[in-house]
């Protein structure tokens, strides 16, 4: 269906090519997963399929890409619209019209299909993706998962043979991600659509994949069945790491696979349990919030929430999109709206409410890194940002740079912040906020777009902050990250706290929040591969 024949892509003459001499074939009806580190060329590969590379992005493409017998050299993306459907990362930015029904019809109008056909296909697609009740809704009022499904539906109406999805679930909570992936697998199984899908969180999709294209980052593409490719890959989801640890071959791709083979491992672990996390030596309260209320016109985002943060503790804030996580963080920091309640930060300067302080002093109490860390940055170079951060906070020159080097060593100072990878940009924004030395640090969805390696660095970084005596809150959807990172988990729903307890308590209590290791080894209370590895080493040593 899709053939790459000795494809090399270059954006600049002297830079390294994102794809070098790639030859591969994706058969009809396959679900093909594309994985690799950030910046390894995943998007380039996906966009080459419908000719956006090089017709739209510029650069040069040597070799040939053929889709359904059509060469992308002679067919620009618009002429491939009836064969390839592309859905980008942010569905909202790709919408052309303003209601669901019109959006579904847009692609067909461009292909000038007869009205009767269009009418029928719109109805079919609405049913196929389970969005029939949304048909008259304005696109902007939909939730993230609904938007993503509408975006998929909007390209499906043209009946493409190939569907290309660039990180369709990266911004979604676990339930919404499930909805989208269920829709995608249904397309593969029922309609025989060929799907090419890029994803960072492999644990969500690898069990459905027929083929894995792994991009190590040097322009090569490793192509093969998922289990075989994952065996030789450094970044891997927890299931695969657990499989490697236990020496399973082939590696398990689904919780079900792993669970059926895990009897022996469960036996080796015996009735043991991971060591309980050492209680913080001095449970000092760094921040205490009482009866926080945040209202927006028509909704109550946060409904009278109490929150206590301890020094040296990492708290994970979870809950579906729109459950009030961000509103709570912004209200606690003092920059966001807050209609009721009180916040007390106990820092070096005594107890204060950050809301009562001017902005430049509030950030000395509570530092917040927003969902898009790039919003904090506006200068042309990394050095410029660091210098500006020092000046803003009247810190000694070089403070911000030192912090940045601790977070990610060796970031070139003359680089433009927009040219940094997601992880590097997050580190820079965090360094800027830490320059003010706040005792409380809040991170809103920091791991969007981070790959496994960057996430591991992020975990080390945040643990470091906690060890240095800061209270940290991380709002996130990523259960695997929470399992590895947090001491305590708070779950929010409809603006209220519905669960609050140690990570093990909360995560083991419900299947929706259980990490993969816990699902495999249940009922034993293991959360991460590292815990299991440590236990296995401990078990071997006395013998």
């Amino acid at each position, binding site marked *: 269906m899709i053939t790459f024949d000795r494809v090399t892509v270059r954006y600049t003459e002297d830079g390294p090519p994102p794809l070098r001499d790639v030859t591969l074939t994706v058969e009809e009806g396959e679900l093909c997963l594309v994985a690799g580190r950030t910046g390894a060329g995943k998007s380039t590969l996906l*966009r080459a399929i419908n000719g*956006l590379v090089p*017709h*739209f992005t510029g650069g040069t493409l040597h070799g040939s890409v053929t889709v359904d017998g059509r060469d992308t050299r002679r067919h*620009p993306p*618009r*002429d*491939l*619209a009836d064969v390839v*459907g*592309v859905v*980008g990362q942010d569905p909202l*930015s*790709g*919408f*052309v*019209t*303003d209601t669901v029904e*019109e959006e579904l*019809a*847009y692609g*067909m*109008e*461009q*292909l*000038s299909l*007869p*009205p009767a056909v*269009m*009418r029928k296909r719109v109805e079919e697609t609405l049913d196929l993706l389970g969005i029939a*009740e*949304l*048909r*008259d*809704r304005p696109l*902007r009022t939909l*939730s993230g998962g609904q938007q993503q499904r509408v975006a998929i539906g909007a*390209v499906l109406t*043209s009946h493409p043979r190939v569907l290309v999805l660039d990180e369709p679930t990266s911004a979604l909570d676990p339930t919404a991600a499930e909805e989208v992936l269920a829709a995608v697998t249904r397309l593969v199984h029922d309609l025989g659509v060929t799907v090419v899908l890029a994803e960072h969180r492999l644990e969500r999709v690898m069990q459905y994949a027929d083929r894995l294209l792994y991009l190590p980052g040097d322009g090569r593409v490793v192509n093969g069945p998922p289990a075989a490719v994952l065996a030789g890959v450094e970044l891997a989801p927890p299931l695969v790491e657990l499989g490697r640890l236990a020496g399973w071959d082939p590696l398990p791709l689904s919780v079900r696979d792993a669970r059926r083979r895990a009897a022996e491992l469960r036996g080796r672990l015996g009735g043991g349990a991971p060591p309980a996390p050492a209680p913080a030596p001095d449970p000092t309260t760094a921040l205490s919030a009482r009866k926080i209320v945040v209202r927006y016109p028509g909704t109550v985002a946060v409904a009278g929430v109490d929150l206590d943060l301890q020094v040296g503790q990492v708290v994970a804030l979870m809950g579906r999109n729109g459950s009030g996580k961000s509103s709570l963080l912004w209200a606690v920091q003092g*920059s*966001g709206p807050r209609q009721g309640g009180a916040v007390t930060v106990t820092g070096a300067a005594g107890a204060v409410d950050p809301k009562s302080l*001017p*902005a*430049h*002093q*509030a*950030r000395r109490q509570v*530092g917040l*890194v*927003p969902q*898009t860390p790039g*919003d*904090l*940055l*506006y200068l042309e170079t990394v050095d410029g940002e660091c210098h500006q*951060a020092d000046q*803003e*906070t009247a810190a000694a020159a070089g403070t911000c740079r030192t912090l940045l080097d601790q977070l990610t060593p060796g970031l070139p100072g003359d680089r433009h912040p*927009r040219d940094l990878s997601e992880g590097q940009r997050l580190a820079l924004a965090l360094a800027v*906020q830490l320059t003010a030395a706040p005792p409380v640090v809040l991170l809103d969805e920091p791991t969007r777009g981070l790959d496994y390696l960057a996430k591991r660095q992020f975990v080390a970084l945040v643990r470091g902050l906690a060890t240095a005596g800061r209270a940290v809150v991380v709002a996130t959807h990523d259960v695997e990250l929470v399992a590895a990172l947090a001491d305590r988990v708070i779950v929010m729903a409809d603006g209220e706290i519905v669960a609050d307890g140690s990570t093990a308590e909360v995560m083991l209590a419900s299947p929706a929040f259980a990490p993969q290791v816990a699902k495999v080894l249940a009922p034993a209370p293991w959360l991460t591969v590292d815990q299991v590895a440590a236990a296995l080493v401990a078990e071997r040593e006395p013998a």
Partner: protein
Amino acid sequence: MTDAAVDRSTTADRWSARWSAWRLPRGLHPGAWWLWALGLATAASHTTNPLGLTLLVAVAALVVVQRRGHAPWALAFRMYVWLGVVIVAMRVVFRIVFGGGQGEYVLVRLPEIPLPEWAAGIRLLGPVAAEQVLGGFYDGLRLATMLICLGAANALANPKRLLKAVPGALYAVGTAVVVALSVAPQLVESVLRVRRARRLRGASGRGTRAFRGVALPVLADALDRSLALAAAMDSRGYGRTAAVPAGQRAVTGTLVLGGLLGVCAGTYGLLDTVGPGYLGLPLLLAGLAAAVGGMLLAGRRVRRSRYRPDRWRLAELLVAGCGIAAAGLTVLAGTADPELLYPPVSPLTWPELTPMLLLAVAVAAVPAWLAPPPTPVPRDHT
């Protein structure tokens, strides 16, 4: 039962079936509502009679309340009414401030502000006469009524659907407008988001540095989004064109450009009384014909179909006809008794309605029942 009775009953059935099909809820073609509203506005522009104008506003409000949908733009009518009130108030205040004070019936005597010699002819404040206030009120009411009529069209017809009805040649322009309309709220959103983020870095949000701190990320954001949108549109087939030989393209371009030039020159000739006669109307018409021809030719290049297009049916014709008839009747009423349609303020007279004007208002109100009802509220399951 006789044959005739059977015949009569089937005819009646057919009529009732037609009537119920007519009453099926649907959105009317936006063009019909705009023609109706323009007709009302034209009627309003031909009178300053406060009774007539008030009735026209009432009719517009009645039709809006009866036949508007549930979309966000349908709620805009109230805003237009308030705008109308502001216009009337402004007119009256202006007449009081720069009044001139002609008129016998002085209501109050405000202290006059003396102005220097060079501003002779302008008077600030001074005595306020009833005639002058009333004149301002009539004037303002006429303007406000016209505005409210257009507001009614806006509330009744989705402005974006009107754009969908543009001819094929202008399709690209229509798309650009739709995209711009949806980008505007996104831009506002990203300004708010970045401004909030700037506060996190301790910025006060004032001064040139703050502006830079907000403007740069917002612009970068907007650029990213437009690139993403362009890529999405391209990969969904936007801009697929039928192959057109270069010769025909040149002909099309020449026709459109030449036609538009002709229209400009013709309009100039028409307004300019000195120039030769052939520069006026003939040139205007020829230019118009050339431009339309060019656009039709260009429209054939656009290969595209429309999803659920608005159709022009009998109801559309009737609604548009009501508006045009209202305009026509008002003009007629004006020729019959002009002094009743433009009631003089000096001497003060009580305004009166003419039967013709009343008929115009009645005709304008008919779409409140004649137009098919709007589609019911979409049920929200979430």
